[in-house]
């Protein structure tokens, strides 16, 4: 088992829970051992660096310092979230490139009894580890249930391949790593032209109509290519395309029902792991129908409406037969 330090980031425990669940399931078959950085904090997402510089890098670097202290000889820090990967990479890169920034960040870290020397850790994305450390030959060996007949749109988003400080990706505008991985799983991969276009990030909250247009373009393109599902490596992309798809439909009077899944979920299915363990059913646009087309049953959890609180006092209401046993 190859050991790595792992920085999950906030989304893996909340909005991207399916990503975390499916990743944990495929680590063993891939021979990966991830040790979580203890007491990590938020990386600041796409917001903190727009407000400040030194505090933003200090926030990120606390994680690098904690990981470095915990490393015990392990050099690689893996992030599964694209924004986290980019922020950790940025801090490591710019602390080295701008020594004055690195010095100020370390002065701040010293207030918490921490320090970080840029270059100590190697920051890598989970997809990069699967492709370049595990390798597609091993992935193919683990496939017991090829995803034959499933048309997938590989969607990376903009934060993984750019700016690519360490030249890890095949192309920063049109990388093919995710395509090759999904092909290794037996899926039919479309040549998705918008694979590194932006999903809107937090625009869904800041300027909804801008976000809706970005989301519509992506889903419409995947739909035009007759993709059954879109597959992503990024929690924010998944959240925007999945959770805001309904509002986008409403805004444009469209009726897209494009499931948006994490690549680790499809890996798990191809490895023969039970769909329930892979976070299926957590998506708001159900993948049930798309997956049933290739003979895979996945759960579909419908959002449950919370039960109404019963009032013990209030205006008398008309009663229907059968209401008696419910009255308190």
């Amino acid at each position, binding site marked *: 088992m190859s050991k790595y330090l792992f920085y999950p980031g*906030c*989304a893996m*425990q*909340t*909005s*991207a*829970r399916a990503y975390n669940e499916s990743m944990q399931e495929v680590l063993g078959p891939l021979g990966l051992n991830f040790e979580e950085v203890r*007491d*990590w*904090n*938020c990386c*600041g*997402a796409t*917001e*903190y*660096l*727009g*407000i*400040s*510089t*030194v*505090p933003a*890098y*200090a*926030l990120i670097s*606390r994680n690098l310092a904690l990981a470095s202290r915990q490393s015990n000889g392990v050099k690689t820090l893996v992030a599964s979230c694209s924004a986290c990967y980019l922020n950790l990479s940025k801090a490591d890169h710019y602390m080295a490139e701008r020594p004055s920034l690195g010095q*100020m*960040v370390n*002065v*701040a*870290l*010293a*207030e*918490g*009894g*921490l320090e970080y020397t840029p270059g100590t850790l190697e920051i890598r994305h989970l997809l990069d580890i699967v492709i370049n450390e595990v390798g597609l030959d091993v992935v193919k060996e683990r496939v017991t249930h090829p995803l034959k007949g499933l048309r997938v749109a590989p969607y990376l988003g903009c934060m993984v391949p750019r700016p690519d400080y360490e030249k890890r990706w095949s192309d920063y505008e049109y990388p093919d790593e995710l395509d090759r991985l999904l092909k290794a799983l037996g899926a039919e991969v479309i040549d998705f032209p918008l694979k590194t276009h932006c999903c809107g990030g*937090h625009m869904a*909250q*800041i*300027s*909804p109509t801008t976000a809706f247009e970005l989301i519509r373009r992506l889903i419409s393109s995947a739909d035009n290519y007759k993709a059954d599902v879109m597959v992503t490596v990024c929690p924010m992309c998944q959240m925007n395309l999945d*959770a*805001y798809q*309904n*509002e986008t439909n*409403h805004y444009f009077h469209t009726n897209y029902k494009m499931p948006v899944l994490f690549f680790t979920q499809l890996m798990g299915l191809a490895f023969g792991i039970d769909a329930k363990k892979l976070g299926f*059913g*957590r998506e*708001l646009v159900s993948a049930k129908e798309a997956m049933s087309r290739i003979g895979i049953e996945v759960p579909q*959890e419908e*959002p*449950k*409406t*919370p039960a109404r609180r019963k009032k013990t006092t209030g205006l008398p209401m008309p009663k229907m037969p059968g209401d008696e046993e419910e009255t308190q």
Partner: protein
Amino acid sequence: MYTLKSMAIQDKAYKDSTAPDFSQTFVDMVENYGRSYEFGLATRHYLKHFPLRLPSMAPMGLGMLSKKRMDITPKHIEGIDQLKAILSRAKELEVV
């Protein structure tokens, strides 16, 4: 790009944009808890800037809650005092 954004926010060289307020709310929550708090962030932002959008957001919000993709309460890191001390010193060092 972030430098320009930061300068624009400091000079208030923007109008009709909720982005600076959103960023500041996000940052405030991270500084208080050490983790992002999507439910609090979204609720506060929509109530302040897009209250009429809330009814159309309800199905999505309920879906996220029922599928355990959003926590109602924030998560705290253990070393929040350490983080606050680091950020406090970093703010003193900040030069634009």
